[in-house]
């Protein structure tokens, strides 16, 4: 009796599964892709496409050092095994040389290529709103201006049956935004709307800065979706800070001008980029036109909800006074003096665009301490850009500081000089200290 039930249940499950697989192969709602005529070799269009490819930061995943541009091969870890970015050069066999404009659009905005669903590591979930004329420009660039590379794509390391892609189709149906041409959210002026187009589209800012839920979909894809939108999220061992202008650890105290400077150089008087944002600066935002950078900044600055703007950071000289007079009795103060103060100074103000200020720095004050802890453990190197050729490196301290010392100094910097960071827990340090690092 019992055995029979199991058999029936198993049979039912197999039937349902088969049906699910079958359904995933038909009726994919990929209608509406760009079917305008194939663009010709138009220099202006190609230039625009090259610029948009930079804004979209295609190179971040599709180009790796030492190999032809856009020939793919970047290894990206997932919980079920590594996947590899693909060759998007116009090579007809290995790349996208046989793609029509509609095929290209389907991959870019719908997440479907050659009949199967793409892993959402490809941010089609953000690219979905790219304007048709911009899709054409991108297509023209990849078709005519990128050199074909005969480098085959590498299969993922994900074992069967997890390697089956059909569930991705369901994921896409359930979670990805319906591809559409960008329309400005209500209430934005022209410049803000231009910024929103970048932030929500090719810029795919939310892919890191908006938190995800259980099924890995973004909790918000636009400002209309509420407070989760761009409010900061943990990504790998860092916390991608809030891009909103409300509350502690947000961009509240950053001016539009400072945001423009940050996007184009990776640094401003308030901070220096770190983690994977450095790559974004190097490959993408340093190339932004003044106009695009400004519109992005203006849009982001419009994201402060008036009711929760909160207090501006106010510098408090108490910690500086104590350190200056030789009082290192505060927990973590001695660790700070021995390891940090040479560059960040006892007043926590650092040196503009060399060693970032810790006082009032939203990364230091953020709700999540992950970035502070990871930077202490791993160090950080500023990006080299055309506008800022000097690179500054903070060395790693994992070899030198115990978990308790990291905890103490992280708490010290998060609570000194007026900073309003919450207490760090010892297990946070343990969680972020990778296995290869000495303890």
């Amino acid at each position: 009796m019992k055995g029979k039930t199991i058999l029936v249940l198993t049979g039912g499950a197999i039937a349902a599964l088969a049906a699910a697989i079958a359904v995933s192969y038909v009726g994919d709602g990929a209608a509406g892709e760009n079917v305008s005529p194939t663009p010709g070799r138009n220099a202006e269009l190609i230039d625009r496409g090259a610029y948009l490819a930079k804004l979209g930061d295609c190179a971040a995943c599709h180009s790796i050092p030492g190999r032809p541009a856009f020939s793919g091969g970047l290894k990206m870890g997932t919980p079920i095994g590594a996947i590899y970015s693909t060759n998007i050069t116009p090579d007809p066999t290995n790349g996208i040389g046989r793609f029509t404009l509609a095929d290209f659009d389907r991959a870019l905005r719908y997440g479907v290529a050659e009949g199967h669903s793409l892993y959402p590591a490809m941010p089609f979930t953000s690219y979905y709103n790219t304007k048709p004329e911009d899709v054409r420009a991108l297509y023209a660039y990849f078709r005519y201006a990128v050199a074909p590379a005969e480098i085959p794509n590498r299969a993922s390391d994900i074992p069967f049956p997890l390697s089956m892609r059909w569930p991705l189709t369901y994921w896409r149906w359930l979670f990805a935004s319906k591809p559409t041409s960008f329309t400005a959210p209500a209430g934005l002026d022209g410049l803000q709307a231009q910024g929103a187009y970048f932030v929500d589209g090719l810029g795919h800012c939310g892919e890191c800065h908006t938190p995800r839920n259980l099924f890995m979909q973004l909790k918000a894809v636009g400002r209309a979706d509420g407070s989760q939108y761009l409010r900061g999220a943990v990504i790998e061992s860092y916390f991608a800070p809030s891009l909103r202008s409300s509350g502690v650890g947000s961009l509240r105290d950053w001016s539009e001008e400072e945001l423009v400077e940050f996007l184009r150089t990776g640094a401003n008087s308030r901070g220096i980029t770190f983690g994977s944002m450095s790559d974004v600066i190097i490959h993408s935002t340093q190339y932004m036109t003044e106009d695009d950078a400004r519109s992005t900044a203006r849009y982001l600055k419009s994201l402060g909800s008036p009711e929760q703007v909160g207090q501006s950071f106010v510098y408090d000289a108490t910690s500086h006074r104590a350190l200056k007079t030789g009082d290192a009795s505060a927990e973590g103060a001695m660790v700070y003096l021995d390891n940090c103060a040479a560059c960040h100074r006892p007043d926590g103000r650092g040196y503009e665009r060399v060693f970032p200020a810790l006082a009032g720095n939203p990364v230091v004050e953020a709700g999540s301490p992950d970035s502070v802890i990871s930077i202490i453990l791993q160090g950080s190197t500023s990006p080299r850009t055309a506008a800022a050729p000097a690179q500054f490196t903070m060395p790693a301290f994992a070899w030198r500081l115990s978990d308790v010392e990291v905890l103490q100094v992280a708490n010290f910097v998060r609570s000194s000089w007026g900073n309003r960071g919450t207490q760090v827990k010892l297990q946070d340090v343990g969680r972020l200290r990778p296995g290869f690092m000495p303890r």
Partner: protein
Amino acid sequence: MTTPRKLKPVDAVIIGFGWTGAILAKTLTDAGLHVVALERGPARDTAPDFEYPRIADELRHGIRGELWQPLASETVTVRHAVNDTAVPYRKYGSFVLGNGVGGAGVHWNGMLWRASPEDLRFRSHIQERYGKHFIPPEMTIQDYPVSFEELEPHFDHFEKVCGTSGSAGNLRGTLRLGGNPFEGPRSDEFPTPPLPAIHAAQLFEKASAQLGYRAFPLPAANSSAAFTNPYGVRLGPCNLCGYCERFGCFLYSKASPQTTILPVLAARPNLEVRTGAYVTRILQDSSKKRATGVLYVDANGQELEQPADLVVLSAFQMHNVRLLLLSGIGTPYDPSTGTGVVGKNYAYQMCGITTAFFSEDTHINPFIGAGAAGLRAIDDFNSDHYDHSKVGFIGGATIYAGATGGRPIEQMLLPPTSPRWGAAWKAAIRRHYRHSAPVTLQGTVMSYRDRYLSLDPTYKDKYGIPLLRITFDWHDNEYRMAAYTASKMEEIVRHMKPQTQATLLLKPGNHYDTRIYQSTHTTGGAIMGSNPASSVINRYSQSWDLPNLFIYGASAFPQNIGYNPTGLLAGLAYFSADKLKSSYLKSPGPLVSA
């Protein structure tokens, strides 16, 4: 050895990737040339090589010299006189040689002086002021074939590249309080203000003023503020950590090629830097009128030929001279006849030190220090800034106060009467460490007929190639210079009111001793002049023999100055680089007719 593999020709090859190599690499790649830089040592950058706190390790860097050229592979030999037999310099003492990308520009202190206007026409100046016969016949000093006014814009530019901190003493001809009153007119202020004087320098400043001397902040390539140089490269500010000399800077504030020029070269597709490349010869065509490239041994021991249209020789002073001699370029200098030019006019510096030992309520705290920033100097007794008619010598010294740090091995100052070991030594260290301060003189050394560089007949490097031989000892002129300037230094120290003071100074009878650090400012051997009979290069640093060979560095100095050499040698390099851009690259050939 098998026939060297011939590589693809390039527009220019640079030998040695320190200060002048970096300056020329920038100039030539700016002009669109395809350039290969060959550096014998390893690649080096602030991160990870100079990272805090590992860099602040005196035993590893200050004593064992991990950043220096390993003497076991190649060194020099030294003898005092023409008929002596030279022996190898096996252990660092008298001077230290840089190695790797950045060269000696990594481990210098950052004392960034210009030459005085009269230094550049020293022979003429002395003869005009004191008469034709004032210069003794054995003293072979010469004029530079380039004037202070011509070099000034290039001094100024290099100071800006370095984020130099200081205070102008002569701004476009107007003397200004707080700067060096003896300097030539500057076209602009220093790019960053001076750091406040450290305590020893404050006491020196006060004592100097009492005696009527005018102390000023020592010009420091230790930036005092976060500063963006003309190439867009940002430097950090100096925090007086005390680890300049013999170390790389972890704060990005001491100017080095790494912190000022190399960041803009990093992504240039027309520059390739090959490290571990030991150049053994500059090649010439059969007519000996043109350099055709260089021969070098790579890190794997492979011998390679790098053909090039333009050869830039920008290694350390001694290595420049050795490579010319090994390559058979120019006539080697012969001290018996005074003819020939390669190796001629080797000179050095003579230094002295007076240490002030204060009572325990004077807190010197020597660990607060920098290579140059925070120090104070006087220039009253250098060059020909004072009347030499009665003093019995030519030249002089800068005198400056303050330690460059308070390192535990070499910067523990003790009175000569203190025991050198044991409990009494420890007690003396405890008593004096925080309460003592050095005042230093850095003096000129003239050039002489019997002081020169040549190839050693016996000793060879690890590839079996002859070492460079130094023939050098002090002359009476220098002992007298040191005695005179030291008397001034001691007088200043007395006015600083220490409990006791002690002077270390070379006296007649003290031979040149390679075991004792003097300075790394060795000069000459490939000197600059107005004609090929008396010099190796012309005013544009171009070889008289091979017009497509340019030679940079202190090897160009006809005699030595009482300043650190980097400002002058960088000024000469930029002056030459300008001419390369404006003339030579458009129409290669001799820039001065012989």
